[in-house]
Every structure is written in C-alpha cells, then in structure tokens.
C-alpha cells in the first residue's frame, strides 16, 4: 500500500461526501414534484408523456397497485429484450452481422437486464448488434435503474406519510426519475467519456494493419452512451466482454475516477433524500455512516491483499502486487478500489478480473454482495435493502429494553419485521441453494475454469452476484450453458422481486400508521450507538449465513497457499 494509493481513496471518499447533499437536495425536489431549474425544458415533455399514456399525475396508488405497475413495466422490458436478442440478425444497426442469440442465453440476458443485474453470459462485441446494445440494453439500463430508485422512494414515503393508503404514482415517479435525474446527468457524462476516448459511432468494426503487418479487427460502436448509464444506474453490463477493463470502456485514469464516482453518486444521495424527507438530515447521515464504515473496511482489506500480492508469484522474485488480470493504467489501488465499489454498489462493472484476485482480495467483493448489497447498494435497491436491516436492528434494540420499537416516528411491529426477514433471508436461499445444486451437477462443475477451492468460489460468486443483482463475475466460469442460464435467471428474478414485494408491503403498512412524536424513551437513531448496532446486525446476519461457504472457498484457498499448495486440473 502506498501514500499515493491512500490519497486516491481519500479523495474519492471526500468527493462522495461532498456531492451527497447536493444531489440529494435536487432529487428530493424532483420526487416531491417541485419545480427545478430543468422544469422549463422538461415539464412540457413530461406532461406530453402523461397525456399520451393517460396518466393522471395527481392520482396516487396504494402499495398493491404500485407494485403491480412495477411488475407490468418489467413485462414490456422483458419481451422487448428477448425478441431483440432472438431477431437481431434480421434487424438494422448490425454491421458486424451478429446472428440470433440462443434461447437460454436470450432468457438469461433479458432477466439480467430487467432486474438491474446485468450479468453477462455473452461477450458483447462478439454477440450483440448495435441495435440490441442501444434499444435493448441501454434503454433497460435506464428503466431498471429508474425502477430501483422509485421503489426506494415508495418505501421512504411509507416512513414520512401517516394515516394514508397511498405511496405515490409509479408512472409519475419513473417518468420524472428518467427525465429529471438520469438523462440530464448522462448526456454531458457520455460526451465527457467520448472526450476521454470512448467510441460513439454506428460505423462497422475497423480493420487495422499492425506495425508488424498483421490484421487486427477493432470492435467499436455506440459505446459511450451505454457506459454513462451503465455506471450511473449501477447496472454494470458492459458493451465489451472485458467490461470496464477494456480500453474503449475506460481509457484513462480520469475516466476511471469519474466512473467510480458515478457508481456511488445516486445511491449515496438517496440517504440524504431519506433524511430530508423524514425532516432530519442527520437520519440520512447516520445511514450514510453505516455504509461508509463497511465500505472503508472493505477497501482496506482488498487493497492490502492485492498490494501484498500472490505469495506463489512473489516467491519467483516478482514484486509490485498482484498484477495478473489487471490493467497497467489502473494498477493495484485503482483495481482494488473499483472492485470494492462495484460490488458494494451492486454495479457489477469490473476494471480488473476478480477471478484473478488473491484469495482474500477476491473474498471482499464476495462478502460485499452477500451482505445484501447495502453498502451504498444498487440505485434504490441499496437504500431499501439498508432500511430492511434498520427495521430488524430497531426490533432487536426494542427487544433488549422491552419496548415497542419505533423508527423516524413509526412503530415497527410484527408485520414489518416478518416482511423484512423474508426479504433478507431469501437471498442466501438462492445463492447457497443453487451453489449446492451446481456442485451435484457434473456439467456445472465442468464449467469451472480453475481447479480446487477457487473453482468452487467461481460458482458461489456466480450465484451470489446474480441473486444480489450485481452482475460482476469470477469470469473464468463458463456460465453460458443451459444449466447456468436457467438457474441464474431464477436467482436474479427471485433476488429482485422477492425483495421488492415484501418491501412494498412494508411501505404500505407504514404509510397507514399514525406518526408518533419522539419521547424520552425513543431510541435515538442519529448517533454512534445506532450506527454500531446496525453494523453489528448486518455482520451477524451475514456472517451466520455465508461464513461456512466462504470457508470452503477463499479461506481454504488462502490457507492452502500459505502451506505452499497449488492446484492443477488433472
């Protein structure tokens, strides 16, 4: 670890802290339906959309109708994406002549993008036409991100309203989120990325004759427009197979730094939106502190492990940390920081190959996802995931003193706690369950790229990433088989919707409750005790569920390496 490395990390943290209240203030105005500086330009478009679609923006929905609207919205995305993948060979914007995507892979990809997972069992430049990349993937990057954000808003409204049945209007929320938040950031952002060197063209792949006279076909495309929303919306699905490690997705140190800022920007700002809406920004900062502490601890361990390097390589006289599967322009600190951010935030873009990280360095991304993607988390999903943990923590605190727990003026009762536990427990059921099943299927085991415990970690990582709707991979695993395509699709689907529905039930239940004023017996939720308690609950629930699986993967791999053991395939 170096001083310059830590200076980069500190600068990053400082920028996130600085933009959180700014973006949070703006987003609060947008979701409260207030005028913003963009209203003169965007309001006419917004009204036009409501007219065409027959939406009455003053009519609000209860939690059941809101949830049904969310689900209906996903049906359209799924059908469109699946059909595009299957039919791309007959459609325009296909200069590389890509043919129909196979059925299982199309299904996996469609589920992957509507659930904001963006798991890639395909190689972008070798599989997808420009039309699919734009009209299928870029648009779904927007809409799945917008859906995540507005779902968090619905839950926040549950806390802030009292004695009402409604939690907002989904069509209004999703329209405003796309028009006022995502597009206005992505337009200048995409142009900045082009300036840094990311291609933005509809022209065909370029044939070059290298200095030594060989032929090199260079894949290009409308890349920058997709990368901007891929990062801002914590989607993570790349234009290219190598994702953000590809020089055309992430050409410079500056493009990298701005990309990691944009991964955290909206998720961090939502903590501030929460604080503003419940009438006390310190409530938001307390949540931010919980996330921030878990984040910094992860960065420390991952950076330390990668900077220390692979002992088996160090023994050969090599120095400088573990550079296998990393790019020179990002180096150790840039790669480790990116890996922690992308898995903390449910983004899933990668600028280095997690599969080639050291055993302990690669364990940190895995833990981040297994904690439920609540360290900033996916846009919206991180915020509502964290609030579920807060509900459980408040319940635990209430048990300790024998009082009905309350949080920001709302009594937390049996229904909320049951629903929160349901949403929290379904995640390990998916990632541990499917990993166990895969271990019994010979063809699934044969998909592993690495022998020994590292191969097991590849499979565990795959299901964890898909369940948590992250999308990053231990990419050596060949996931493009019927078994992985189908089981992965189930994991992604359940990981998204089985959390959303209980979470919306909580929103509806909270909105209907009376608001009670804080009394001397109210547990203060803006201080260090609260922060420590929630961290404790997250770590205990997480640790109890996935620690045994980690022991079979990265932990035993590290112990074996310490003993000088290597693994070979035969």
């Amino acid at each position, binding site marked *: 670890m170096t001083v310059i490395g830590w200076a980069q990390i500190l600068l990053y943290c400082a920028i996130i802290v600085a933009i959180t209240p700014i973006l949070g203030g703006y987003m609060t105005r947008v979701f409260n339906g207030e005028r913003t500086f963009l209203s003169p330009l965007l309001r006419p478009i917004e009204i036009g959309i409501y007219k065409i679609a027959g939406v009455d923006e003053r009519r609000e929905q209860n939690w059941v109708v809101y949830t049904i609207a969310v689900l209906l919205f996903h049906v359209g995305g799924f059908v469109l994406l699946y059909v595009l993948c299957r039919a791309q060979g007959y459609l325009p914007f296909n200069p590389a002549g890509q043919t129909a995507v196979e059925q299982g892979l199309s299904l996996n990809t469609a589920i992957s993008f509507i659930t904001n997972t963006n798991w890639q069992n395909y190689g972008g430049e070798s599989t997808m036409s420009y039309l699919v990349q734009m009209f299928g993937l870029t648009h779904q990057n*927007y809409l799945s991100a917008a859906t995540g954000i507005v779902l968090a808003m619905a839950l926040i409204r549950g806390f802030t309203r009292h004695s009402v049945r409604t939690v907002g209007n989904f069509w209004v929320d999703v329209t405003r989120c796309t028009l006022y938040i995502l597009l206005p950031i992505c337009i200048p952002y995409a142009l900045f990325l082009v300036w840094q060197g990311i291609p933005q063209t509809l022209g065909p792949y370029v044939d070059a004759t290298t200095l*030594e006279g060989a032929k090199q076909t260079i894949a290009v495309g409308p890349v920058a427009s997709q990368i901007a929303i891929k990062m801002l919306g914590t989607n993570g699905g790349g234009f290219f197979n190598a994702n953000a*490690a590809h020089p055309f997705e992430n050409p410079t140190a500056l493009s*990298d730094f701005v990309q990691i800022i944009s991964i955290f920007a909206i998720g961090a700002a939502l903590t501030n939106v929460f604080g503003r809406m419940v009438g006390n920004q310190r409530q938001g900062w307390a949540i931010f502190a919980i996330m921030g502490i878990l984040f910094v601890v992860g960065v420390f361990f991952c950076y330390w492990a990668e900077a220390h390097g692979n002992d088996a390589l160090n023994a050969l006289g090599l120095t400088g940390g573990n550079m296998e599967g990393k790019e*020179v322009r990002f180096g150790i600190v*840039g790669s480790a920081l990116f890996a922690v951010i992308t898995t903390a935030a449910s983004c899933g873009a990668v600028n280095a190959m997690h599969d080639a990280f050291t055993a302990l360095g690669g364990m940190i991304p895995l833990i981040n996802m297994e904690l439920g993607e609540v360290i900033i988390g996916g846009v919206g999903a991180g915020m509502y995931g964290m609030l579920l943990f807060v509900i459980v923590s408040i319940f635990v605190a209430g048990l300790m003193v024998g009082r009905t727990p309350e949080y920001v003026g709302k009594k937390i009762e049996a229904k909320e706690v049951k629903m929160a536990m349901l949403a929290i427990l379904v995640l390990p059921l998916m990632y541990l369950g499917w990993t166990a099943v895969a271990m019994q299927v010979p063809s699934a085991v044969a998909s592993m790229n690495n*022998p020994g415990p590292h191969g097991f970690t590849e499979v565990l990582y795959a299901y964890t990433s898909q369940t948590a709707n992250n999308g990053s991979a231990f990419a050596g695993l060949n996931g493009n088989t019927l078994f992985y395509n189908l089981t992965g699709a189930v994991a992604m689907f359940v990981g998204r919707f089985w959390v959303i529905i209980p979470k919306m039930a909580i929103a509806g239940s909270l909105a209907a409750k009376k608001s009670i004023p804080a009394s001397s017996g109210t547990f203060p939720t803006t201080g260090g005790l609260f922060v420590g308690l929630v961290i404790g609950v997250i770590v205990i629930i997480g640790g109890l569920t996935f620690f045994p699986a980690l022991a079979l993967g990265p932990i035993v791999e590290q112990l074996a390496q310490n003993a000088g053991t290597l693994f070979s395939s035969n």
Partner: protein
Amino acid sequence: MLREIRPAILVFAVLTLITGLAYPLAMTGIAQVVFPYQANGSMIVRNGTVIGSALIGQDFESDKYFHGRPSATTAPDPKDPAKTVPAPYNAANSGAANLGPSNKALIDRVKGDIATLKKENPAAVVPIDLVTTSASGLDPDITPEAALFQVPRIAKARKLPEDRVRQLVSGNTQGRLFGLLGEPRVNVLLLNLALDRLAAG
C-alpha cells in the same frame, strides 16, 4: 388495475424511444461533430492505412519492437468453430485468462515467461506486468520499468545506443494525472511508432 395497462404500454414505449433510440443517436451525432477522432476509436493512420488504435494494444513479436503484456484473448478455431485458439490482442473478442492465484497453470506460465525474459536481460529484475496477463487482453500500456527492461534488446536489434532508446522511453512515459490518479505508464504502440521515426530519422 386494468387502468394500469395503458400506461404500462405507453409510458414504457415513450421512455424506450427516448432512452433507447433518441439518446444514443443524439449522442452519436454530437460526438461525431465535436470529438470525431475519439468517437471513431482514436485510430492512427500512417501512409493512408489504419495501423491501429492509440488506445488498443497490439501484438508485437519482433526483437525490433517493444513488447506489450501477455494477452489471453482467443479466436474461434478455424478448423472447429466450437473451440477457440489463442489469438493475442484480438480486439474483436476482449477477455482474460482468469487463472486463480492458486492455479498451478498460472505459476507455470509465469515461470516460463520469466525464464524467457531472463535470457534477454539477465541483470535486471523482471517487472511483474511483463509476465502477467491484462484484464482486457488489450492493455495498451506497460510500466516504465517494463519498457526500460527491454531497452538492451531493442538497442541491439536496431543498432542504436542504449541511451537514445532510454531517452525515448522517458519521453513517452505518461505520469499520474495531477500527480495523483492512475499509474505511470508507457503506451507501447506510440512508443514503437516513435522508435520507427527515430530509426528513419
């Protein structure tokens, strides 16, 4: 509930047209006007032919050129399209080796590469980036140490004084942005182009 069906179709349709078609096409139009060089892939043209992209690494085998990092990209096997064969720096199919830290295949590969490099420059320490594959398989850069390591071989093959080649390396070294972000690096293709110019001049 039935009244949610109409917006489900129409809000979806309008937002899809805006974000999936209008947005990427507008970005393409603006980018092509404002940043045409970058928008088309930062291609380098010499004597009328495209010789590569300034951002994409390419495969160098000859002693006369600086070599980039090992690349694990593949291409379909011409004999059997279901299989793949190694094709270093295949810019139409980026990808990595994905060998785990405890995989014997990784350690054996690195050992072999170290032995080869030691022959070329027995005195110097082998820089780690010259024996590890990159994440994209298309890494355009090497560290300054990796470039300096190759100087004796280049000088010999080109019959140039080592100092001239060393100067060329330091002239082509990019530092950290603002002294802080990223890592010091040398773009191999640009360095080799400068080397060709030096030999020609």
